[in-house]
C-alpha cells in the first residue's frame, strides 16, 4: 500500500530513479557536538551529496545503537539538545532548503513524552517528511505509525535479516517513504554485511513492496556505500559520520574549527562512491 499523500521523500526517490542511481542517506545526531556545529553540518549536507537527511533525536538509552551513536547522543544531551530543539533545527534548515527530504530517527519515549499529536503537528510544520522509530515494530503501529500517516508524515519501517517472509507483509502494510533494511543482526556501527547477502535480502523484500529499499548498519567507506548502491535504492551511513564528529573535538569535548567541514568531506567521498556505482540492470 502506498500512502495517500506525497512527501519530499517520494519526489526524491522518483528523481533518483530517473537519474538511474541510488541515493545516499546520511545520519547525524541533532545537537552533536553542539547546536551550531550540528546545524552547520545539516545545512551543508545537500551540497555535499546527501540525497536524504536523517537526523537522530538524542536519547539517553539508545538500545539499538553501538558505541559511536551512543556517544553522539550523550554529547548532544550534554550540550542541551532535546526533541524540541531537534524540530527547531529542521525548521531552520527548511528556510534554505525546501526539497531535501528530512527523516527523524530515534526512540519512542521522547516523542511519547512530547505528546504524539502535538509532535506530529510540530514535525509537519517544521518540514519533517518521515519518521524512523526503532522501538515501534508493526505490532505497535497504533502508537505513532497510523497517526503519522494521518498527519501526512511517512513512517519508515525497519526490516532485519530476522524478518521472515511471514513477517514482511505486516511490516510493509503501512510502510511508506522507503523501507529500511538493517543489513546485519546487531547494533549500529559494528559489523558490515556482505554485498551478496544484502542483494539476496533486497530481492526477497522486493517481492513484498514497491517502496524504495534503503540499506544501513555497518556501511563506513565509499567502497562499501558503492557496493550497496549497486543493489539497493539507497545506502545509509551514520556511525562513520558521528565518528568524524568525535575525531574533531578538542580535549574538552568542544568542536575544533573545521569539525563540520570534516564531516561534510566524508559525505562528499561517500556521495562520489554512491554516484559512481552503476545500478545493476540500469542502462
Amino acid at each position, binding site marked *: 500500500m502506498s500512502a495517500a499523500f506525497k512527501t519530499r521523500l517520494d519526489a526524491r526517490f522518483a528523481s533518483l530513479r530517473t537519474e538511474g542511481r541510488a541515493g545516499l542517506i546520511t545520519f547525524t545526531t541533532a545537537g552533536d557536538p553542539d547546536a551550531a556545529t550540528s546545524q552547520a553540518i545539516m545545512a551543508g549536507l545537500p551540497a555535499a551529496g546527501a540525497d536524504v537527511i536523517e537526523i537522530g533525536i538524542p536519547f*539517553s538509552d539508545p538500545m539499538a545503537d553501538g558505541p559511536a551513536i551512543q556517544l553522539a547522543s550523550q554529547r548532544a544531551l550534554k550540550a542541551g539538545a532535546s526533541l524540541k530543539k531537534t524540530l527547531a533545527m529542521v525548521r531552520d534548515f527548511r528556510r534554505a532548503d525546501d526539497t531535501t527530504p528530512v527523516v527523524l530517527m530515534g526512540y519512542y519515549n521522547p516523542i511519547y513524552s512530547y505528546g504524539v499529536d502535538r509532535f506530529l503537528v510540530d514535525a509537519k510544520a517544521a518540514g519533517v517528511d518521515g519518521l524512523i522509530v526503532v522501538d515501534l515494530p508493526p505490532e505497535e503501529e497504533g502508537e505513532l505509525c497510523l497517526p503519522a500517516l494521518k498527519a501526512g508524515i511517512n513512517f519508515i519501517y525497519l526490516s532485519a535479516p*530476522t524478518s521472515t517472509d511471514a513477517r514482511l507483509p505486516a511490516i510493509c502494510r503501512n510502510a511508506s517513504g522507503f523501507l529500511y533494511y538493517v543489513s546485519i543482526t546487531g547494533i549500529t556501527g559494528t559489523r558490515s554485511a556482505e554485498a551478496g547477502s544484502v542483494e539476496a535480502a533486497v530481492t526477497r523484500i522486493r517481492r513484498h513492496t514497491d517502496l524504495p529499499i534503503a540499506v544501513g548498519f555497518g556501511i563506513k567507506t565509499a567502497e562499501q556505500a558503492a557496493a550497496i548502491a549497486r543493489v539497493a535504492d539507497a545506502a545509509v551511513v551514520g556511525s562513520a559520520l558521528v565518528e568524524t564528529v568525535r575525531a574533531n573535538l578538542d580535549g574538552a569535548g568542544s568542536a575544533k574549527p573545521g569539525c563540520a567541514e570534516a564531516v561534510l568531506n566524508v559525505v562528499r567521498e561517500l556521495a562520489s562512491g554512491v554516484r559512481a556505482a552503476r545500478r545493476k540492470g540500469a542502462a
Partner: protein
Amino acid sequence: MKPLNTYRAGPDEHGHFGIYGGRFVAETLMPLILAVEKAYAAAKADPSFDDEFRRYLKHYVGRPSPLFHAERLSAHFGGARIYFKRDELNHTGAHKINNCIGQILLARRMGKTRIIAETGAGQHGVATATVCALFGLPCVIYMGKTDVERQAPNVFRMKLLGAEVVPVTAGSATLKDAMNEALRDWVANVEDTYYLIGTVAGPHPYPAMVRDFQSVIGEETREQIMEAEGRLPDTLVAAIGGGSNAMGLFHPFLDDASVRMHGVEAAGHGIETGQHAASLTAGRPGVLHGNRTYLLQDDDGQITEAHSISAGLDYPGIGPEHAWLKDMGRVEYVSITDDEAVAAFQLCTQKEGIIPALEPAHALAHVGRIAPKLPKDHLIVMNLCGRGDKDVFAIAKRLGVEL
C-alpha cells in the same frame, strides 16, 4: 474506581495491562520475542514442564520456603502480627532463582545454547550463573560498572560459577544500562542466545512469564497462612525494584478483596531530593526496555538516573503490571528512604537473628510504620526476598566500620 471482577486476567494477547506493557522492541528482536511467547505458551500447556519446574524448585532451590512468625518484631512494633515469607533461604539467597529455573527450562526447550542476563545487585546474575552451571550453558552477565564496584562479592560468585561478567560503562553504569547492553548483545546473537530477564519488566511475554514463575511465593504463602492462622492475611508487603518478588507474592491474592497490598519503592535520599528510585511515586508513564510503564524521566523524555542504597532497587522503571495495579488502585505504593532501610536492616538482624538484604529491609521499614497502628489480630505477611550477606560491606561502610 470501580473494582474489577478479576485483577488476574492480564495481560491481553498483545501483552497489555491496561495501557501498560506491550512489545516496544527493534524489528530484529521482534521475531525472537514472538518465539519466546509461543514457546512459553506451549510450555505452560504442557504438564511435564510444570512438573520439571516444581521438581527443581523442591530439590534444588529448597522450596517451599518457610513462613515464619516474627514474634519479637511483632512485639517490638506492638501491633499487627508479622510473618516473614523466607525467600532469603532459597538456594543463592533470594527469590530470583525461582524465575531463573523456569526460564532456563524454557531456553532449553527452545534449543538455545547461550544465556545472557542483566543484573543490578547481582542476585539475578548469581541466580542466572547458577542455573547455567547446573545445565552446562555458557553465560554472560551485564552489570553496570557502578554496581560491579559496590557488589564485589556477587561479582566474584558469578565468576566462580563460570559466568563472564561484563561491566557496562555506558550511561549511568547501573541496572538500566546493563539492560540496554544485554539487549544489544541479544540483537547481535539472535540465533543461539536466550535473554533471561530478571524481573517482571521488558517486552511481552516477560512480565507475565516472570510473574508466573514467581507466583510460587504467593501460592505457598496462601497455603502456609491458612495452616498457621486458618485465614488469609490482611496485608501483604514487599519491596519493589522491577517488582518481581512483589508480583510473585501479590498475584495469587489479587482477587481476594480483603487482602491489602503495599509495594515499597526506594526513596533513596528522599523523594524531594530527586535522588531516589520511586518510579510509581514520582515518575510518569513512558516507554523503555520493551514496555510502557512508569519511568523516572525529565521533561524531554530522557530517562534519569535512579538512586538507592540498594542496587536491586536502583532502576528508573517498574514492571507494567504494577503500573496498572497502581492506576486501578488495587495495590498501594509507598516509599522508604536509604536511612530508614538501614535502620530496619539493623533491627531485623538484632531482633530476629536474620540479616536481610537491603531490598526487603525497605519492606520491613514500611512494616515498622504501619504495624504499630494495627490491631494485634491483623496479619501482615512481608516477603523477606533476599539475605543480606551481599550487603554487609555496604552497611559496614555506611556505619563507618572498616572490614
